[in-house]
């Protein structure tokens, strides 16, 4: 799995795209050594061991790995796509991101939808 993630991180570098890992290793130090060994450069959150990983529970993740694709508005668009279908879905969503000057990783303000 990881080689494909690494490839996508490289392929979409500079695009409005982020790979975010939610890791279930036994400890933060285990994650740290895995990241070094596997050359993982994208952000990862350590959520705790699988049996007690609250983030996985909130997302109803019961198998690993599990992948979700979120669009630029934070709406969940796809779950568990793999390979070429995953890349196609990501590219379609990237194409829908409105162009803006230098996409900042830090939002200036929480935009609320309201009604």
């Amino acid at each position, binding site marked *: 799995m990881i080689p494909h993630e690494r490839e996508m991180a490289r392929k979409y570098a500079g695009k409005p795209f982020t790979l975010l890992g939610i890791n279930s290793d036994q400890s933060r130090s285990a994650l*740290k050594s895995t*990241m070094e060994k596997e050359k993982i450069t994208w952000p990862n*959150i350590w959520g705790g061991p699988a049996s007690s990983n609250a983030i996985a529970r909130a997302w109803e993740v019961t198998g*690993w790995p599990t*992948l979700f694709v979120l669009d*630029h*508005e934070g709406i969940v*668009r796809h779950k568990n796509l793999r390979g070429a279908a995953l890349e196609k879905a990501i590219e379609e969503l990237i194409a829908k991101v409105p162009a803006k000057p230098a996409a900042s990783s830090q939002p200036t303000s929480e935009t609320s939808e309201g009604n």
Partner: protein
Amino acid sequence: MMLGAAWILLTAAAPLRAADELGPLVDSYDAAVRAFVESSGKAGGAIDLTKHPANETLPQVQAYAETHAGTPQAMPALVWMLKNARNAAGIPTGGKVAVKWAVDRLARDHLGDPAIKDALALMRYLSFQLGHEHLMNIYQAVTERNQDRAVQAQAWLYIAQTHFVLGAGGEGASRDGQTPRQQAKAILKSLIKDYAGTPAAEEAASLIKTTQGTGIGMEAPDIVGPDADGKEIRMSQFHGQVVLLHFWGFW
């Protein structure tokens, strides 16, 4: 049809017997229900709703509501009908016509009455009988016509809940590209903000928490946690970008 004829007679005769006060009528009904339940228990537990006291009281309460139509006095009678008409199984239509009548009266005469609060709470449970669309129109009208802030907030809460119900059943048209769930959430968020301090806003806040989920088409809840070095990361930092969320681990 004999029963049908009896119903017509009852409704026709009812206005003549409209009680001067609702209180004693309702009190004697409550006493009759207790006696009815007790005697049903003695008779072996089976409750025969065709003999339920509601069959007798419903036309009287309806007559009272009719006599006081358009005044605040009608309200408690209409609320009583929403609550109790279903027990009147001896009346053909099982009280359904009476319920619909009461809801029509509420929508016609009482949208601006703060006391519509109790009726709104009961109407929610009649959605399968009355239809979601019909109820939504009433809630909407309450938000526009009622001056009471808490009542407006309550109506918005029920509108949001109805969107959730429609979304869960896969019904409900998307509007402005939003799914019913997204519409519901947008309404809840505005409700929490615009009606802060009302009971409905508090309920909305707890509702929005329990409906955080991860289904396709839903707004993702934020994720917060430490990275490998213990530094906090939030998924919302990446808002505005496409995010591939990768749950993984070696263990």
